[in-house]
């Protein structure tokens, strides 16, 4: 619903709270600034744009934390188009973290590939602002807007190595299939808008795209076209499913990830996936909420059951397809692409748990678990891709598994860090991946234990997740085996690790162990509600 139209109709003072979108504004503004500076910059000064981007992201993160701890006076603004809750804040932080690491990852890389750094950084920041909007949108339209900002920037970034055919292919494929999925999402939004028209008093009230209002109307059970609601929800499921790469909407992932420049792949696997989860969660959990024992066989219970079961099945398919297909890959980037599909499946387990939660605490736990999972995935995934970037050299030439043959003791630092990331992706204890998996699986079992009737469903979901983890051991270990247990026969020069790259590796390694050993603080923080009301001090 157009904000100004509301303002026109209402004729009251507008519901505007700019501090609430401070992080988005900062990142967007810095993106414009970077673009502008880039126009005046000489080629030798590319680190300036990188540095500026980092500063901007840091400011955005600071603003997010400020929103979280101090609050901005209300929990929503622009008539509910922007909301302020722990999902938004936690995912925003994840997304900013991913972008910041991608900047670090790319500083030297752009140099080496002779690419325009400023453009890359501004595109990255635009994509970030899109992702932040996806996390903060309380309205389907805002979410779509964020999605498009993100997607368009990512399409370009995929094809950033203009002279490389694989990169072109990746970009074009992503563009065509991405537009296709956006259309699905948009159509779903339109259908939901149509479906949620309702009768109030004597007249018909038009539909809504506001998620909270959709939720209310669905709960009340007085929407005019329940059948359309199902169709709309299904279309949106497909649209979001594409963005987070759930099977069977995953087919674009391997090709796009393989062809895109490695730092971009790292970014895409971690950032847009997290943002996609943020809005996916918000739309389905708050838009089509669980209503427990209310109103038997109302449209609300039906639509909730429908998407919950659909997602449970999707989670199973996604985990299995991702892991099984990853086993047969011979390209490391492709393998990590399939592994990212599998990880989307694990996170979906938490999603299902959040959807099935019967009380607010359980739901908050499950939502925090998914956000935490995305954070852990971002950390280990970016770390792994950092090493892959280093080993790939210019033009992403060395990305086959054979290129890793026997490099273990030639470049022990790189190989051991990569092994740690792989073990973390596998979910070995003491690493972030383990706690992430425990968190999502635990939330599913938690829901199962409090809903005895359906408990076997959740147990099965978790058991399949666990068995998939075991399958994944095979391909993660394969890379370790190739690196350490084989001998290299051909010449191989140890890649030099530039300072920015070293910083990325140090941050991600520390992150992997910090989240693996002391995840408590982060988990608690992700569950914390933002300070509401006036700007008040949080009691500590």
């Amino acid at each position: 619903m157009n904000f100004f139209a509301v303002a026109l109709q209402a004729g009251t003072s507008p519901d505007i709270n700019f501090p609430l979108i401070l992080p988005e504004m900062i990142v967007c503004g810095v993106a414009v600034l970077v673009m502008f500076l880039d126009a005046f910059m000489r080629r030798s000064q590319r680190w300036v744009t990188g540095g500026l981007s980092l500063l901007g992201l840091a400011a955005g993160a600071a603003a997010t934390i400020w929103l979280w701890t101090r609050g901005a006076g209300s929990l929503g603004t622009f008539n509910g188009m922007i909301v302020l809750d722990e999902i938004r804040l936690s995912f925003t932080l994840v997304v900013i973290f991913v972008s910041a690491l991608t900047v670090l990852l790319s500083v030297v890389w752009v140099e080496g590939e002779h690419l325009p750094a400023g453009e890359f950084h501004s595109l990255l920041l635009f994509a970030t602002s899109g992702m932040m909007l996806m996390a903060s949108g309380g309205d389907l339209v805002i979410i779509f807007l964020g999605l498009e900002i993100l997607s368009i920037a990512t399409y370009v970034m995929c094809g950033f190595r203009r002279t490389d055919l694989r990169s072109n292919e990746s970009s074009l494929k992503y563009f065509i299939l991405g537009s296709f999925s956006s259309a699905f999402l948009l159509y779903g939004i339109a259908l939901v808008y149509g479906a949620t028209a309702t009768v109030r008093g004597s007249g018909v009230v038009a539909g809504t795209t506001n998620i909270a209002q959709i939720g209310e109307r669905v709960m009340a059970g007085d929407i005019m076209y329940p059948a359309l609601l199902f169709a709309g929800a299904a279309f949106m499921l497909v649209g979001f499913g594409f963005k987070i790469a759930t099977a069977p909407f995953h087919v674009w992932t391997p090709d796009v990830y393989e062809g895109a420049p490695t730092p971009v792949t790292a970014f895409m696997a971690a950032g847009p996936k997290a943002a996609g989860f943020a809005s996916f969660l918000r739309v389905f959990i708050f838009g089509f909420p669980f209503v427990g024992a209310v109103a038997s066989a109302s449209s609300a219970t039906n639509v909730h059951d429908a998407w919950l079961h659909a997602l449970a099945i999707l989670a199973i398919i996604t985990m299995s397809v991702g892991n099984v297909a990853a086993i047969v890959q011979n390209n490391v980037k492709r393998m990590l692409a399939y592994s990212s599909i599998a990880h989307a499946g694990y996170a979906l387990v938490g999603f299902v748990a959040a959807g099935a939660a019967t009380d607010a605490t359980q739901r908050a736990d499950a939502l925090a678990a998914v956000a935490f999972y995305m954070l852990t995935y971002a950390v280990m995934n970016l770390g792994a891709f950092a090493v892959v970037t280093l080993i790939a050299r210019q033009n992403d030439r060395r990305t086959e598994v054979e290129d890793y043959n026997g490099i273990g003791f030639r470049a022990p630092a790189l190989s051991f860090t990569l092994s740690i990331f792989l073990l973390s992706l596998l979910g070995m204890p003491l690493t972030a991946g383990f706690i992430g998996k425990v968190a999502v699986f635990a939330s599913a079992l938690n829901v199962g234990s409090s809903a005895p009737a359906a408990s076997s469903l959740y147990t099965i979901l978790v058991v399949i997740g666990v068995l998939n983890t075991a399958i994944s051991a095979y391909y993660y270990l394969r890379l370790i085996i190739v690196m350490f247990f084989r001998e290299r026969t051909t010449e191989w020069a140890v890649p030099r690790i530039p300072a920015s790259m070293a910083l990325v590796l140090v941050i991600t390694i520390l992150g992997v162990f910090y989240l693996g050993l002391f995840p408590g603080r982060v988990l608690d923080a992700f569950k914390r509600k933002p300070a509401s009301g006036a700007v008040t001090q949080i009691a500590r």
Partner: protein
Amino acid sequence: MLQDNLLTILILLPTVGALALIGHGLFWKRENDYRWIALLFSVITFALSLLLLTRVGENSDAAFRFEQKTLWIGAIGSYYHLGVDGMSLWLVILTTLLVPVSILSSWNSIKKRALSFYVFMLILESAMIGVFVSLDLLIFYLFFEASLVPMFFMIGIWGGERRIYAATKFFIYTAVGSLLMLVGIIALYYIHQQQAGAGTFDYLTLLDALKSGRVVITESSAFWIFLAFAFAFCIKVPLWPLHTWLPDAHTEAPTAGSVILAGVLLKMGTYGLLRFNLGLMPEMARRFAPYFVVLAIIGIIYGALVAMVQPDVKRLVAYSSVSHMGFVVLGIFSFTEQGMQGALYQMLNHGVSTGALFLLVGMIYDRRHTRQISDFGGLATPMPWFSTFFVIASLSSIGLPFLNGFVGEFLILLGTWLSTGFSYNWVATMIAATGVIWAAVYMLWMLQRVVFGRIRHGENARLSDLNAREVGLLIPLLILMLVMGVYPRPFLSRSRESVVAVQQRVTKSTGAAGSFSVEVQENKQR
């Protein structure tokens, strides 16, 4: 101070050693120092672990000593909770003993990438100690899994011909099992949350709640949770038919790796069965006992028969492990004090004897670069010291009276005979007892072909005998074999109350047959 944090120190010290090694490697790069640093740290750890004996005295009760409890992850409700009782005490000490021994055994044989080898060894030691002393299920799982990685690298990097296959198989087998256990652990957490208000991973809290009946695991849940735990542990033990990773892993691993694998890693499985399966779900343990007994007996006989026909000495010892660990499982599921004490004792025996056997096999492999039985023969002439040790270790493995193996196996068989946990216990005992005979057959036959007889290959005549280092590292094991065979009291009396507590829990838990506990009382008086 030292005493209060002893367990933490024991866990961290090897890791600190590993970090020190890495630091040393980064700055000095002196290849010859690595082994000394590793040895230093492992010996200190061993010395410190002996301090555990100060609080777990003879005839001490079943309570946990050296307890430490700090909140680890508040959001999940997991505590860093450590403690040692009579059951874990000796396993910890066995671990800390075997690590320096295996470091010594790799003194000259690990030449390439020595730094990484010792780093992995020390990290492995931390993980192994952690497994035996953790009292929080999540922490236990953490160490249980963490022990996989260094071993995986050790087999894969320093192993034999088929090391990649063996390492992958080892990792995936064990990971599958333990991941299912993770599901079981989380399920227990939420069962406790459902019934007692707050979820917990804490072993003692769970045990208390279950004992007092505040928390009752429904039968179907208990069934699956028990299976999840049992699956993980049985792969680790390994119980027939889940044993197939073991011969490969043992054979391909470097000597030190085999020693640690056989000596400690396998015990994690039986320890887990004893501590968690029996402790937390005694009814299910009773229900499943007949199946376990049958599988254990099949394992005993099968392991022995297969060992007999192995042409490779190391593989023979590996299969003998399957057989011996079958005895341990049999003892555990006899649910009698004798049987379970025997099982615990047999774990230690197996660690010592099989460890020694692997060390000896490694020593001749270093000299001859072959392990085929047919390549040897008549080693007694050129290598008298070696042959003496080899014969003693083999006899101990067979279970000759006055050597450690006898005590363990005798107790287990006695316990099985007295057991009322399953019918036809005397049949089980008799079949299992033939396992001892088979052991004698394969071991003695192997000895005859390797140590005695004529020298059939010229190279063997020129083999040098054990040097001082090798004798030195075998002596402690040899002394242990004799002491444990002659004077088991200090060992058994320390573990007794803890074992009896578990046994009582199984036999007396709700729904136990009356005659069952009477029988147990009689046993105790005897």
